[in-house]
């Protein structure tokens, strides 16, 4: 089973078109293996990206260098998935 330990999901809020373009460029960098849950499209829409652990440093550096604001929406994806599995298991046991 694929493991997502250390993966974070960042909610990035571009404030102008230039930042949207920078985020589009970021999304083209295949070696980072980013998974855009909400793609960079328009200033009015937030961008959500799942960032593997090995890409966290370069992505955060990129955002900081370009002064693009972001929040950590999910700090460790695997924690949420473990909780999801536990909930399903508990529900089955109750059933």
């Amino acid at each position, binding site marked *: 089973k694929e493991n997502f330990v250390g993966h974070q999901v960042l909610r990035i809020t571009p404030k102008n078109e230039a930042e949207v373009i920078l985020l589009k460029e970021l999304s083209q960098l295949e070696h980072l293996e980013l998974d855009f849950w909400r793609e960079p499209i328009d200033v009015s829409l937030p961008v959500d990206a799942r960032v593997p652990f090995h890409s966290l440093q370069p992505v955060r550096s990129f955002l900081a260098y370009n002064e693009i604001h972001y929040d950590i929406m999910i700090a460790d994806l695997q924690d949420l998935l473990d909780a999801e599995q536990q909930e399903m298991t508990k529900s089955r046991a109750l*059933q």
Partner: protein
Amino acid sequence: PRSTDDFNYATYHTLSEINSFIDALVQENPNLVSKIVIGQSYEGRPLNVLKFSTGANRPGIWIDTGIHSREWVTQASGTWFAKKIATDYGRDAALTAILDRFDIFLEIVTNPDGFQFTHTSNRMWRKTRKPNSGSRCAGVDPNRNWDAGFGGAGSSSNPCSETYRGTYAHSEPEVKAIVDFVTSHGNLKAFVSIHSYSQMLLYPYGYTKTPCRDQAELHEVAQRAVAALTSLYGTKYAYGSIINVIYQASGGTIDWTYDQGIKYSYTFELRDTGRYGFILPANQIVPTAQETWQALMVIMDHTKNNPY
């Protein structure tokens, strides 16, 4: 569960559990609900559709949930909708009036291979599971695989992309099965495809900026549907055409259905709490389904009252 009354709608379920639910619902409501199999997925799973019908030769309303496999709250909501329809018929006047005139078709797991894969191997899987010749990456985005501006901007030609369109329109059996069903049925009057997340209710087009000819009416219905949805828990939705509200997306489901003549073609993006993305906690399932149902009823009621 011994019956669909015992089924826990407030938790996520595996594919086999959902399939058992479908069979139980049919068994419990033989005069209202039947199961039709419209095809097979790439890996050979049945593409099950629930048909709610109270008479012969009726026009139809289509609802599908979960064409993107990792969007688990959609399949969970679809399960809740199925029970809601079975329960409310004969009790709720508005739904009864709809079912007295229309059949409702509900495909709860539109992409069963992908859904199974999210449960067994990769919770983040979005696409179908068919291998792509010459690539290490499998799967096609089934919401870029329809013959509506296929191959245009807003879809990818890279098999490793999450928005990979496939080699040709309707290449995915999960898509082709719906295409064949829609064309052979020939009398669907509404088509609603449900996704998550980002809280939007959208109508055609996604592949072109040209407004669809019914835009004014679709916009007005969307406005009322969103108002009904918001009235329950205050969830705020954006609404409008796909290309104006989100982005240019070619090869999308409802662009194709609209171009086939199904005027009331809509797509939802369900709840976004801003904290969980696709991993919406299970305690959000029922509220999400309840509020979405309010909007679905507005669309279905409008379809009933405005024959074309």
